[in-house]
């Protein structure tokens, strides 16, 4: 018996809907599979662009790197590494505003991500927003590093110290360097970097200690030798400075001059202890003679300003004036010191105005060191 029209229509519609539902389920499965495959391929593409971009960045091809890293971060937005790398490249390209626009939203997603905080810290530092920089540096320091690397934290603290020093916050920088303490991995690079910062902060004593630690690990490390030599020189340890700087294979002009000055100080310091009277007198005479010659030659020039000339003449007159104590003929240490003061006064007057030789620099250094030692 044939079904009524309504029932046939109903059966047709229900069958149709069921078939459609089945088709939708199959279609969903197919589409989902294809989407996952597409997702995997996109991730691979993004990773490849990322690698290319990192390589280009390392090679200094900033524009190419920007192109590649943008592709990576656009293709796979889920991987924050690409955004961070793009931010780094933008900063390197001198576009910190754009870098910040990329990194800020990433930080909202992952406030503790050390890489993001580090990049933001660098941008803030470049903008002279030191407080922001310190905040981001600390966030990076206390963030969770993938391998819990003390090395990474050391690098950040060193970088932060450098930023603080560049912005005149010496005390804070010294505090950060002190915080490195025993957690800093015992490597030459770390010791040299920390010691350099200490030297920049004016703490030559701790800088020398740091450079010595580096030299214990690698006795011929050129940067450590140079830094240690400079620090020793600043501390007035001229013999040690000469010894350290003499070990440099290819010293810069400045370091070579420093080495020569240190050598001259060691060989010509009239105030050095344990010298015979004759030897001391000989050194003193040489020092005084050199200082007088320098001023005399300088005055013979025609380009001096009147005020400078007057100052030099006054110093020359003071140096030539007979001293009451010298008439006694006693060759005491007191007399030696007074005579050296005359040479030092001449050198001070000529400093920065008259041409100088390494011996002049040595005499000045001896005088400055003596002044520092005086109560």
């Amino acid at each position, binding site marked *: 018996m044939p079904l009524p029209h*309504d029932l046939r*229509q*109903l059966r*047709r*519609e229900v069958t*149709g*809907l069921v078939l*459609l*539902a089945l*088709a*939708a389920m199959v*279609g*969903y499965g*197919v*589409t*989902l599979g*294809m*989407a996952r495959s*597409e997702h995997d*391929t*996109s991730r691979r*593409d993004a990773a*490849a662009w990322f690698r290319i971009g990192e390589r280009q960045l390392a090679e200094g091809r900033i524009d190419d790197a920007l192109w590649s890293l*943008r*592709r990576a971060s*656009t*293709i796979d*937005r889920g991987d924050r590494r690409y955004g961070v790398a793009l931010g780094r490249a933008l900063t390197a390209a001198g576009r910190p*505003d*754009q870098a910040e*626009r*990329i990194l*800020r*939203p990433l930080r909202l997603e992952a406030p503790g991500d050390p890489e993001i905080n580090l990049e933001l810290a660098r941008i803030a530092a470049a903008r002279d927003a030191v407080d922001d920089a310190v905040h981001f540096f600390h966030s990076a320091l206390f963030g969770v590093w993938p391998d819990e690397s003390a090395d990474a934290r050391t690098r950040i603290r060193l970088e932060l110290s450098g930023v603080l020093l560049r912005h005149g916050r010496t005390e804070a920088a010294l505090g950060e360097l002190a915080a490195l303490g025993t957690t800093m991995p015992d490597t030459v690079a770390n010791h040299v970097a920390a010691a350099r910062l200490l030297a920049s902060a004016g703490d030559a004593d701790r800088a020398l200690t740091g450079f010595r630690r580096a030299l214990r690990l690698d006795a011929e490390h050129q940067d450590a030798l140079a830094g240690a030599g400079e620090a020793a020189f600043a501390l007035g340890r001229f013999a040690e400075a000469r010894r350290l700087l003499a070990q440099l294979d290819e010293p810069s002009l400045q370091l070579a001059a420093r080495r020569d000055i240190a050598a001259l100080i060691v060989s010509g310091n009239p105030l050095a202890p344990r010298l015979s009277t004759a030897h001391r007198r000989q050194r003193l005479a040489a020092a005084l003679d050199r200082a007088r010659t320098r001023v005399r030659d300088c005055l013979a020039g025609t380009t001096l300003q009147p005020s400078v000339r007057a100052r030099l003449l006054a110093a020359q007159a003071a140096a030539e004036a007979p001293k009451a104590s010298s008439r006694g003929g006693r060759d005491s240490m007191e007399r030696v010191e007074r005579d050296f003061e005359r040479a030092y006064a001449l050198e001070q007057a000529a400093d920065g105005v008259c041409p100088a030789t390494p011996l002049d620099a040595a005499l000045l250094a001896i005088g400055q060191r003596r002044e520092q030692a005086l109560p």
Partner: protein
Amino acid sequence: MSEAPNPAATPEAVARERRVFLALTLLIGVLAGLSAVLFSLSINAATRTFFGFSPSGWRLLLVPPLVSLVTGVLLARVFPGVRGSGVPQTKASFHLAGGVIPASVPFGKFVTGVLCIGAGHSIGREGPSVQIGAGLASAIGQRLGLSPARIRELVPVGAAGALSAAFNTPVAAVIFTLEEIIGDMNATLLGSTVLASVASVIVARSILGNEPLFHVPEYQLVGPAELLAYACLGVIGGLVSVVFCRGLLGMRLWFRRLPARTATFQPAMGGVVIGLTLVVVPQVMGVGYEYVDQALNGGLVWTTMLTLLVVKLGATIVSYASGNAGGIFAPSLFVGAMVGGVVGTAVAEVAPFATGDPGAYALVGMGTLFAGIIRAPMTSVFMIFEITQDYQILVPLMVANLLSLVISRRFQPVPVYHALLLQDGVQLVPGDAGASPQAPLSR
């Protein structure tokens, strides 16, 4: 849900038909969403197949014309109704053909769309998605033996579902369907389109995740004076819209006037031009959303944006006018972002007041060109809002949209979709009046 009762039917039959229609709306939403997602994924796969990871110059030069030779045959001989965007054809089907779309249309549009866009033509995937979704809905309705009124009602349902998934913008999809396909913001089909749009976007998000189409920083109006700058953007956007529409229609007319025997080869002619273009400016390949994203995030310098604006405009005109299967949604957003980026950079240089980032202008520029070219200002506003989730940008967007729309209307009185249909000999009057359903709907 709309009402389309048959006066002769029993109350039970009417109630049953409503329930079936409701279930069908949901299912069509799901299927339209799936079709849009699958279409997008297939285009990506085709692009990768044709061009590889980092294409050589030869590949860029040769792929578009060679693939277009194949699509030319398909478009001329196998699927003649699937050239171009698909939105005008869908409108015409809804208004003139009782919503009847042959089952071959969505299939043909899918295949040719994947090939054309995958081969690097500078056209978009959203228009084709609309035609695929609408075609699927119509074919299902016909297959199930629904009444002609119900079949017609399913067309905007499928269109809304597809567009919702294609853009991940469910509200804008509904507004577009009402504004552009139905042509009546008070249409009784609102409930059905909303349902399909929601079902579709849920499916799409469950597959692709809830990622917005573009990642945009929070932009806002810096000060009231900046509205002047956005007004300038609206004017410039309107003028660029007119250039785009006139260029597109003019070149399409030129292609149509070529001897009929060349129709098979016209897409390949466009392919030759696109191949040469891609060798020099590969960024204009395909949909190009990657570069829109970069412009929105301030990642492109103004010279690059100006170059992309000019080249994309020309490439889209050539790709579309030569009869390839693809839409103008994506190109209008691309060109708009570049216009906005260039204007934003210029404003930042010369304005005596504080201005926002060029990325903010690129965002508003997208909406401005969309309003000027597609003539769907409400869709534009809602779409940008759904993309950005940011109220702050809406005021400048509305100002710029309004001016763009006024200028576009002034210099290009016939909207581009209507003008395209007119070139095909179809006179479209909303409300079904005065047109021949037999008029050719190709291209």
